[in-house]
């Protein structure tokens, strides 16, 4: 663990030597390795190390009797701040509130749509699920099954384009007493221009109050590329990190926030429809630290 590694680095100087800048540099190298092992982006790791370095100098870690602990605390605080949001997420009343989910293939959007609908229903809302993935085999059927399991209606149609379907979902929701509309879109590559235009058209037509980028927690260095592209097209207001019940450290959460400013709002912790929780930056920081 990073704790043990740093203890080792500083152990030699604990026995009566004074710390030098070289020792601090060794400690920072350990931290950088921990970040890279956790899949934090190469460049983002550099920025974070610079920040930790400045604070280590400012807090005079070099004079500390417990340098390893102090550096870890700084590291933990820097990571937490890198992921925390000062504005809490409020899913308000907009008659209806529209939530759009987008992301790469297989990231967990359809399952998350069901989870989000379930969470909001438990909070007393009347959600409507919209099956706007019209390309994946049996995608509509998949969302319908989830809707049946939850007792939540699913709007589905064929012979229509995703932007048109999402646009007509709003008056449909209003007419049927739904105060939240959740749009499940097809997985797509951020380098697929026609499909990125399509997802931008969905946003333009449905005017969502919240756009969430659904991202697999085990995503590596590519997270910054896809997140940045989706952010440029859709102006993301949040990220949902899925499959966090695995053993991946989830450094993508930090990289995505760093390049887009979009904070993680929810995490997926399993395949069941009640396994969606609110995001806690400090817990994630501990996880990335390892």
């Amino acid at each position, binding site marked *: 663990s990073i704790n043990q590694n740093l203890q080792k680095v500083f152990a030699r100087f604990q026995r009566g030597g004074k710390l030098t800048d070289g020792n601090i540099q060794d400690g920072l190298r350990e931290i950088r390795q921990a970040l*890279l*092992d*956790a*899949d934090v*982006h*190469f*460049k983002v790791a550099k920025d974070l190390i610079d920040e930790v370095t400045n604070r280590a100098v400012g807090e005079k870690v070099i004079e500390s009797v417990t340098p390893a602990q102090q550096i870890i605390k700084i590291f933990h605080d820097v990571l937490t701040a890198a992921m925390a949001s000062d504005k809490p997420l409020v899913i308000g009343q907009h008659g209806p509130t529209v939530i759009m989910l987008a992301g*790469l*293939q*297989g*990231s*967990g959007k359809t399952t998350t749509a069901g989870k989000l609908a379930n969470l909001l229903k438990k909070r007393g809302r009347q959600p409507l699920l919209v099956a706007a993935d019209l*390309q*994946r*085999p*049996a*995608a509509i*059927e*998949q*969302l*319908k*099954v*989830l809707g049946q*399991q939850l007792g939540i209606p699913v709007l589905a149609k064929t012979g229509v384009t995703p932007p048109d379907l999402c646009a007509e979902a709003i008056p449909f929701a209003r007419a049927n007493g739904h105060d939240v509309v959740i749009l499940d879109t097809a997985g797509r*590559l*951020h*380098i697929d221009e026609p499909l990125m235009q399509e997802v931008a058209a969905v946003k333009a037509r449905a005017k969502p109050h919240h756009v969430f980028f659904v991202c*697999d927690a*085990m*995503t*590596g*260095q*590519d*997270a910054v*590329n*896809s997140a940045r592209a989706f952010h440029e097209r859709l102006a993301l207001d949040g990220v949902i990190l899925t*499959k966090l*019940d*695995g*053993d*991946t*450290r989830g*450094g*993508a959460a930090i990289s995505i926030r760093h390049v887009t400013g979009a904070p993680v709002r929810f995490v997926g912790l399993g*395949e069941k429809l009640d396994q969606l929780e609110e995001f806690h930056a400090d817990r994630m920081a501990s996880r990335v630290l390892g």
Partner: protein
Amino acid sequence: LSIGRDLDDETLDRLEETLYTADLGPSATAMIEKARKAYKLREIKTTDDVMVFLRKEIEDRLGERSELELRGVPPTVVLMVGVNGSGKTTTIAKLARHFTQQGKKVVIGAGDTFRAAAAEQLQIWADRVGATLVRGKAGADPAAVAFDAAEKAATEKADVLLVDTAGRLVTQAHLMQELSKISRVLGKRIPGAPHDVLLVLDATTGQNAIQQAEKFKAAVPVTGLIVAKLDGSAKGGAVVGIRERVGLPVKFIGVGEKADDLEPFDPKEFARSMFE
């Protein structure tokens, strides 16, 4: 990176970033260290030299090309495994198409009895590629479906049996055990089965891919990898570390969402793509 120029430390730093952001992880560090040593010993002098050096490093670590062969008495049984959403079901469709195009008779076992509309998704694919689907009821024991599929493939003298499984994370011990059971049941009905176990890896996955390879290999006799979604911007570099540390070769790559979007893995082409 301008070609033919004298090499310098800054270029090596930039190459380390290129390899690292391709998800090569610790292998990137190791390769750049070797390049730095060779540069200090004047064994490599120009940017051309270092590109050739690094491409060869990657190719050497990836090993020889490794194909999927139809072996033994038909049917050859191939089990697809991997974490949730990696591309298993779509890859099965592509593999089925690969064989039906050769005139082979293909049976597919709908071994994902858990996820919503999993069998429906596979039925659509089976119809599209001309394969026979064997499925069970939703929630059925996947090992039972695997057995039924093996039974059908054997009695109908199919050339290939492709068995799909539900996605699972390696932290789910009971699901890894379930996978072992599916593999054993296949072997009971068809001697030597599964002849191949292919781990489908999402190209966007980072260092967790190494964990996936280790844990799946501990549960079932994985014989190779398929890297899906390489048509994206992710480079899939984690497969280098997997070959080095777990010994698994990449057999195919997935480059799209259609039945034809499967290609055999070419280590030279893959090494070259790291630098694009």
